[in-house]
């Protein structure tokens, strides 16, 4: 079944709608789905008070329904939180905590997403065709339980602290990234194709960060290990270019690997005297 959701208005208040989840929709009629509870500001509403719902049968009937949201839902938070299977497609912008703690399935956004997308993710895939906000794949405040699996692909730019506290999984950013990429990461891989602001890999203990563009600076608590001709991002994806390899963060006795492309970073050439 494919469930189409059309926002009935432009949302002004924050909407918390963790019920927009294939797992929750599974086995329910469109009327039952419409009666699911959501919060708009401090008032409780039914899903059909905020969205027009339409159901259509898919040609191949997948196990869990496919949810398609048509329109701007940037004020709608926790879409697909904790999802275990199925698919969500957002044809517009999506709000905070998209796919928080998701375990499997796929979320595709043809627009931008706000902060904490894929927060504490365990598995599955999130693909964003626009930009992502701060704390991509990072835990919420106070938690150190970062991403433990799955894949996040962002075709645009991302904000601060992408992949903070990450343990496993992969984040691929085909645009630029803000500061503190991979802050306190313990494992997994982060690839930034373009430029990256300062403090990449701050306090990282393990894992790999690859930056293909210009890095503002490398922290003084990183040490250079050598030069590499190519770097493998994941199975079937290799970047053929000379990369500096740094290890750190020394202040945390870390052995994380930070690859920084040599070409766009002539200001790091002074490290070559240590090789």
């Amino acid at each position, binding site marked *: 079944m494919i469930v189409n959701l059309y926002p009935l208005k432009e949302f002004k208040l*924050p909407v918390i709608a963790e019920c927009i989840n294939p797992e929750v929709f599974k086995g329910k009629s469109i009327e039952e789905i419409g009666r699911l509870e959501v919060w708009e500001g401090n008032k409780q509403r039914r899903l059909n008070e905020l969205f027009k719902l339409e159901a259509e049968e898919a040609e191949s009937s997948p196990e869990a329904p496919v949810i398609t949201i048509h329109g701007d839902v940037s004020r709608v938070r926790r879409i697909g939180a904790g999802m275990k299977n199925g698919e969500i497609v957002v044809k517009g912008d999506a709000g905070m905590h998209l796919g928080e703690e998701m375990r499997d399935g796929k979320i595709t956004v043809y627009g931008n997403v706000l902060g904490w997308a894929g927060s504490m993710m365990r598995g599955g895939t999130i693909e964003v065709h626009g930009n992502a906000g701060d704390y991509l794949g990072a835990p919420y405040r*106070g938690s150190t339980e970062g991403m433990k699996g799955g894949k996040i692909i962002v075709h645009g730019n991302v904000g601060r602290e992408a992949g903070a506290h990450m343990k496993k999984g992969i984040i691929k950013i085909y645009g630029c990234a803000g500061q503190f990429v991979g802050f306190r990461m313990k494992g997994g891989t982060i690839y930034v194709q373009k430029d990256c602001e300062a403090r990449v890999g701050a306090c990282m203990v393990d894992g790999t960060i690859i930056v293909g563009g210009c890095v503002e600076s490398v922290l003084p608590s990183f040490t250079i290990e050598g030069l590499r001709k190519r770097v493998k991002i994941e199975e079937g994806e290799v970047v053929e270019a000379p990369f500096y390899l740094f290890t750190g963060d*020394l202040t945390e006795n870390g052995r994380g690997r930070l690859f920084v492309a040599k070409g766009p970073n002539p200001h790091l050439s002074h490290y070559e005297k240590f090789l």
Partner: protein
Amino acid sequence: MPVVKAVSCPVCGSLCDDIELTIENGEVVKVKNGCAMCEAKFLSHRSEHRIRKPLIRKDGEFVETTLEEAIRRTAEILAEANYPVLYGWSNTSCEAISVGIELAEEVGGVIDNTAVVCHGPSLLSVQDMGIPSCTLGQIRHRADLIIYWGCDPWSAHPRHIERYTAFAEGRFEKSAWRGYMAKIRSLIGLKKIRSAAKRLVLKEPSEIEARLKPTFVPSIAREGRKLIVVDVRRTKTAEMADFFIQVEPGKDYELLQALRALVRDQELEVDHVAGVPVEYLEEVVDAMVSCDFGALFFGLGLTMGGAKLRNIDAALSLIRDLNMRTKFVIMPMRGHFNVTGANMVFTWQTGYPYAVDFSLGYPRYNPGETSVVDVLLRGESDAALVVASDPVSSFPRKAAEHLARNPLIYVGPHMDVTAQVADVVIPSAFVGIEAPGTAYRMDHVPIPLKKVVDPPEGVLPDEEILRRILSEVRKIKREKTKAEAA
């Protein structure tokens, strides 16, 4: 004329409690022992800009009204709102804040205090890392190394240095005041020599400089209490420091990480960090490691510059590393006199120190999502209550515009910018001058605030005003429930 002694000053987070006030005809006429800010605050209670009557905006103009009507209108706005914000709280008593949180829960709003625009990042990092701290009394008596990072207490907390740190006469550590005076005298002498040499033109100026310079290099290795200042500019506090590190703006994180690496005896592969030569840093680290009791105070230069909350993360980690070698504590330099109290009361009642969202009926906390500045910047709120604060003059323009666009209630003593754009204005008494209460000093020590004069007629303390609003909101809700049932 009666003199009231041992009054606590309701201005900054130092909460000096040795102020003496002279009262005449129910007004404070003389302030003793206080700094300039303290004196201005105690004398301002009789200011002509004081609000004395409740005001309601009608057809774009303020109209005087009764307190009952102002409270009724406030309660109606808050009870009808779908996502109200309740902001301020750091310039009032803990007792009033407690009622404010109850009100936020009742109306399902977002309640936040001024920590969101000052030490909010510090609180986030403290939650991640923990904080090794102590009372200011411990520092006064025992600390032999004081570091001020990204703050200028000489201007912002004028009596902090004199009462608690470098210039305080401790039981085990002597005041560095005499050393500072000697330094000032020598600097004046140096200036005179330079001026005389220039006038006489005996030698090339550069040659004179070269001869004079080595004599006046500050030494970190001297005996006694030492003061280190780290800042982006040479402030008044920096001038009295034994060692001043001028860090490049926004590069504090790099400097802190470099210090951490040096404390851990690691080699750095760079010559300069954040514009500071590594040899200088090594000297500072030697002083840090060799002290018996060190204290690091940090201000908004650290919390709001460059790496923001991660600066504090690095500072706390540095203190953790230093505690493996010696004794070191860290403390944020809190601004408003009861911002620490606001964090404390918020934490007792909700579990979180600021940015608490009650819209789902239970407290939720995720600064960036539930912090008032971000809520306003995204234009999500539909009403606001401001208590003892002036956010319109301090928030980003877009946030202030949204605040003014929606129904806004102001509770406070002054006709400030927020009061001028508000829809309902309720005057309140000055806590610590016209109303008693409790406030928390920056080291989490509760200090009682005294009532020394009576407030103007009909003006109530914040706590009483908030209790009346809360009671009115509950009444409106009961009426609504009855009407729905009928």
